[in-house]
């Protein structure tokens, strides 16, 4: 287990406390659409933040700007004190420190499960093959798919694929993990197996930004809920506050819709 949670060890060694991800005054347009409007968001080390909001409000875009899969028009984003670099080698290095889990899993279709989890280690981190495999197997065990190591992604269920995707991201020892609706593409009976892995991760102290509508997860694992609508952050609160007593009308309206359907 200790080999798996290297990120945490490194953190303990250099207790650089404080803010890990900082977005200040971030704006982004898709053509005429102002998809992110003056976004200010600070995420502390070890914090778990759930982002919630109606479809099309810019949650995915927000997530994707943090590892610069989307560029921004103005404002600044820093990770661990360093501003996001331009496209290139340095950005690639930074992306390795930011794990991302996609709604549609995006496992490498031509690689086995084990190779999926090893590839970043060997090609990006330049880890020894043996060492990378040991770590990959440990991570696959940790997310409960150790027995599937030699299969191809298409042979796995959605829940298993998503857990492999989490293992693939963890293999890079990320400083922060981004989850963009990780359970939205799953059949209901598979949602919990993925949420449990995420909950364990949160308990282990991983810094997480999670776009999800799973209230159970938000209540049990999140330190903070950020509610977005129309490209703006409308409300920030603790999960309890937000779900039982939302302040804004937009949030009230939104919650009434997801609660009574």
């Amino acid at each position, binding site marked *: 287990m200790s080999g798996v949670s290297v990120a945490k060890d490194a953190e303990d060694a250099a207790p650089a406390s404080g803010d890990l991800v900082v977005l200040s005054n971030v704006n982004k347009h898709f053509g005429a659409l102002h998809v992110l409007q003056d976004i200010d968001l600070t995420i502390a080390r070890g914090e778990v933040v759930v982002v919630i909001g109606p479809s099309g409000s810019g949650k995915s875009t927000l997530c994707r700007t943090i590892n610069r899969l989307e560029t921004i028009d103005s404002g600044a984003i820093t990770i661990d004190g360093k501003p996001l670099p331009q496209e290139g*080698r340095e950005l690639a290095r*930074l992306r390795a*420190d*930011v*794990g991302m889990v996609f709604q549609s899993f*995006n496992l490498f279709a031509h690689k086995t499960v084990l190779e999926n989890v090893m590839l*970043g280690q060997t090609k*990006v981190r330049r880890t020894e093959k043996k060492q990378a495999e040991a770590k990959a197997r440990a991570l696959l065990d940790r997310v409960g798919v150790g027995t599937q190591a030699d299969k191809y992604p298409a042979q796995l269920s959605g829940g298993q694929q998503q857990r492999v995707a989490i293992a*693939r991201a963890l293999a*890079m020892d990320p400083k922060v993990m981004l989850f963009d609706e990780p359970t939205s593409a799953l059949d209901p009976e598979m949602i919990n197996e993925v949420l449990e892995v995420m909950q364990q991760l949160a308990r282990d102290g991983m810094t997480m930004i999670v776009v999800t509508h799973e209230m159970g997860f938000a209540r049990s694992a999140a330190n903070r809920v950020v509610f977005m609508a129309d490209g703006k952050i409308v409300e920030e609160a603790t999960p309890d506050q937000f779900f039982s007593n939302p302040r804004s009308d937009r949030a009230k309206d939104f919650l009434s819709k997801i609660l009574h359907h």
Partner: protein
Amino acid sequence: MNVLLDNFSEFRDGFIGTVEITAVSSVIALVLGLLLAGFRVSPVPPLRFFGTAWVTLLRNTPLTLLFLVFYFVVPEIFFPGMSSFLLGSLALGFYTASFVCETVRSGINTVPLGQAEAARSIGMTFTQTLRLIVLPQATRTVIPPLSSIFIALTKNSAIAGAFSVTELFGWQKLMSDQGYDIVPVFVWVALGYLVVTFAISGAFRLLESRMEVAR
């Protein structure tokens, strides 16, 4: 008096010439075509521009014109004294590279965007993403059209014969100049090309079935 048996060594030289110019320009076309495809999907605007310009220019130029440029302009300006074999291979390779590029690019577009995004999000560079994730998945769709492109290249190599490269089609001219009946000459030439093109499509078919098994 059999045209083939009487002139077998010339025929053999022509055949070997065709195989050689086909092989050399195929390698040029493949390597360059892959590189150009990479340029065309690259995040760097000047590279994208270069790739687009190359394809637009070379794909839309008649091959004979290109050969003329390579034989009469290129040696004057760039490489004086380059052999006609090499000039012909370059002309054919550069021309075919533009087709390879477009085929590979359309193959790249069949790979879901999420694959490249996942690769980039674990810190792979653009080149790694292309080489390790996208191109291997594009290969399956690209192989059948590539086969056609290389068969076309083989047949296009006949133009090099007009520029004093020893190759199969040139043998035809040699024979008809010597007064042989044209029909059997054409039959032998056609058979020679068939051997090469069948070998190419066979190799590609083999490659295709290999990939089928690998899945």
